[in-house]
């Protein structure tokens, strides 16, 4: 772990500072979304968050329990239709429907999961794939009042719009347009936050550890008293109820639900999001949701002329690109984007755990003589990484503007990495001047400082240019 730039003890002041910075980034991201984005883009973000919750639900089963669930589109559909029916036909409020949706989802999970999870093997995959295929046909059944409730092939709309009460007008982005996507964004963020908190608590305690133990070694789990079918079914049912909750959010966001929204293809989208985001990681769901919506958007812009034939991303080939991403990630990045992020994070910081009496288990930084030069080396590498990513993005953008996203990614990495590299470089040089570092530190440290500064300047310049482009300076009233 001595490769990390910063080594801090758990719960120390530095560690807390690091956490605050992370939370600040997240809060800034959330706050800016409704302020900066256009309403239709906020809508896309809402969809990404909803997909994120659904992917989290799939992840509970696939990533944390090692069982294959391929039919969560059906649970989303159940949640969405129950919500639409209760709100439209029975005049309930959305928040009143939440417990109903959670309970219905849980029961459906038990009905589907229990038979399949009593036995070992791929049976859950079998049942859930059939469930995903069957669900869209079930909502069209005329009997038992089903079609009346679901709207049948026409789908069902909720006529009442979700409007911010006047005492919530102060929410960022909401003022003026109280019924807009910004208000729905805040509701969804709240629901996502609570869901994520509850799931995190669940996974990091006794029942969650039993779920993970089953994934890692079933025989071992049984010997230590884990009741395999019960724990698996419970976990699957919890996952199903979270999937239904995502369905409720879907209905709340779109105000319209139809059977063809919840086909097997949606289930496959969830799996793709799971793999992109990170199987078996808590953040993987949200990251995957963002990327599914984002990649979907990007592929639509692809248009590569190949002689007589034009490769067109707007047609059926969009799905092929998703398929390709699925296979490439399975081969080369089985931990998804989150695990790549963790690799970078581990380069940046290493948190030393504590004994119950509050002592750090490993020696802290500074005691390890090899430490300082590694630190400068890592800073140097980081300082190079930012501009390189930026350059690659810029090149790709000029080849074909479909890869704007790579540029955006490079830019963000530079924003994150360049200042860190610059600061560490300056720090190490100072330490060298004070005689606390060997001479070998000097080269990498000055390079980190210089390149980091360059990247920093570049980012600021780029941001200025974007700003001027978006808000031409001569249009800004200088009062």
């Amino acid at each position: 772990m001595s490769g990390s730039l910063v080594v801090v003890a758990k719960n120390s002041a530095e560690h807390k500072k690091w956490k605050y910075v992370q939370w600040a980034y997240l809060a800034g991201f959330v706050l800016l979304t409704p302020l900066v984005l256009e309403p239709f883009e906020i809508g896309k973000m809402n969809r990404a968050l909803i997909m994120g919750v659904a992917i989290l639900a799939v992840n509970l089963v696939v990533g944390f329990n090692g069982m294959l669930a391929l039919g969560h589109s059906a649970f989303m559909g159940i949640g969405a239709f129950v919500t639409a029916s209760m709100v439209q036909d029975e005049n309930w409020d959305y928040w009143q429907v939440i417990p109903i949706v959670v309970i219905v989802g849980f029961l459906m999970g038990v009905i589907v999961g229990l038979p399949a999870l009593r036995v070992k093997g791929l049976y859950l995959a079998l049942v859930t794939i059939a469930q995903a295929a069957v669900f869209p046909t079930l909502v069209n059944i005329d009997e038992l009042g089903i079609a009346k409730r679901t709207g049948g092939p026409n789908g069902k709309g909720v006529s009442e719009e979700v409007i911010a009460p006047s005492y919530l007008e102060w929410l960022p982005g909401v003022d003026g347009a109280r019924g807009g996507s910004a208000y729905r964004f805040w509701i969804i963020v709240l629901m996502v936050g609570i869901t994520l908190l509850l799931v995190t608590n669940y996974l990091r305690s006794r029942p969650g550890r039993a779920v993970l133990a089953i994934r890692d070694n079933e025989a071992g789990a049984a010997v230590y008293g884990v009741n395999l079918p019960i724990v698996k079914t419970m976990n699957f049912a919890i996952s199903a109820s979270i999937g239904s909750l995502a369905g409720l959010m879907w209905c709340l966001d779109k105000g319209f639900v139809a059977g063809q929204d919840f086909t097997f293809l949606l289930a496959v989208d969830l799996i793709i999001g799971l793999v992109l985001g990170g199987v078996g990681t808590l953040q993987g769901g949200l990251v995957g949701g963002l990327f599914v919506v984002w990649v979907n958007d990007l592929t639509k812009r692809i248009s590569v002329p190949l002689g007589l034939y034009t490769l067109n991303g707007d047609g059926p080939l969009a799905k092929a690109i998703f398929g390709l991403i699925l296979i490439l990630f399975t081969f080369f990045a089985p931990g998804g984007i989150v695990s790549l992020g963790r690799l970078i994070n581990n380069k940046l910081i290493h948190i030393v755990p504590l004994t119950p009496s509050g002592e750090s288990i490993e020696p802290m930084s500074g005691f390890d003589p090899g430490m300082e030069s590694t630190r400068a080396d890592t800073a140097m590498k980081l300082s190079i990484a930012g501009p390189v990513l930026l350059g690659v993005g810029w090149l790709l953008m000029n080849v074909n503007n479909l890869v704007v996203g790579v540029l955006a990614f490079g830019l963000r990495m530079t924003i994150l990495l360049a200042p860190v590299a610059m600061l560490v470089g300056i720090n190490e040089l100072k330490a060298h001047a004070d005689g606390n570092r060997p001479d070998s530190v000097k080269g990498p440290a000055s390079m980190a400082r210089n390149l980091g500064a360059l990247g920093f300047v570049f980012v600021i310049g780029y941001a200025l240019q974007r700003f001027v482009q978006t808000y031409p300076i001569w249009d800004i009233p200088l009062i």
Partner: protein
Amino acid sequence: MALLEVSEISVQFGGIRALDDLSFTMDEGQILGLIGPNGAGKTTLFNVVSRIYDPTTGSVTFDGQDLLAMSAHEISRVGVYRTFQNLALWPGMSVIENVMVGDHTNTKANVISSALRLPSMRKEENELRDRAWAALEEIGLEDVAYHPAAGLPFGTLKRIELARALIANPRLIMLDEPASGLTHQEVDSLAQDIKNLRDRHNLTILLVEHHMRMVLGISEKLVVLNFGRKIADGDPDVVRNDPEVIEAYLGSS
């Protein structure tokens, strides 16, 4: 009265008799060595007692309770635990979490109390973590407590399994080749550790091991299997001189 009573156990896989009419008893506090050549049925017996296999005939009672009437996850309730020959750790969790799951049976936090972090759950969780730490300290593993259980040396992983079995205050631990893959020095200290643990925690230990010096050194009773049948049973010093045992096992090695 005997603590563990295995009587007339037979296990049949297709045409193969993995265990043939095996009977023996263990007293409380005893270290019993179960030995025999490869394929003699030792691990099969473990799998019967820990309810992974169903025997064709016979019965297993522990402290008067019928183990065969229980499911695999229920036998930990009466205090019967085991380790695995090829490890059954959970590599996706940290070492201390592995040990914490070890006491799954005696802890109570459920989905709701955990998701809401109710005070009762937090209290139990803190106590559990402290006990897991104590178990790790006892085995000398506190340095790797927060390391993922994947990627540690084999000998360390074996000791993690021991710590995991210890945390639940077991009455009977079945150790499946704890010394395999260890160096000579490690084997000697392991033998001493097992004896100490038995004395400190009032354990009864059923030991399967190929390492003869270690088995003969710490066992108070030996059961020798060959092709699924018991060929000798009793005091180690007597058994090791039994001509049939020497013929089947010691003689060949």
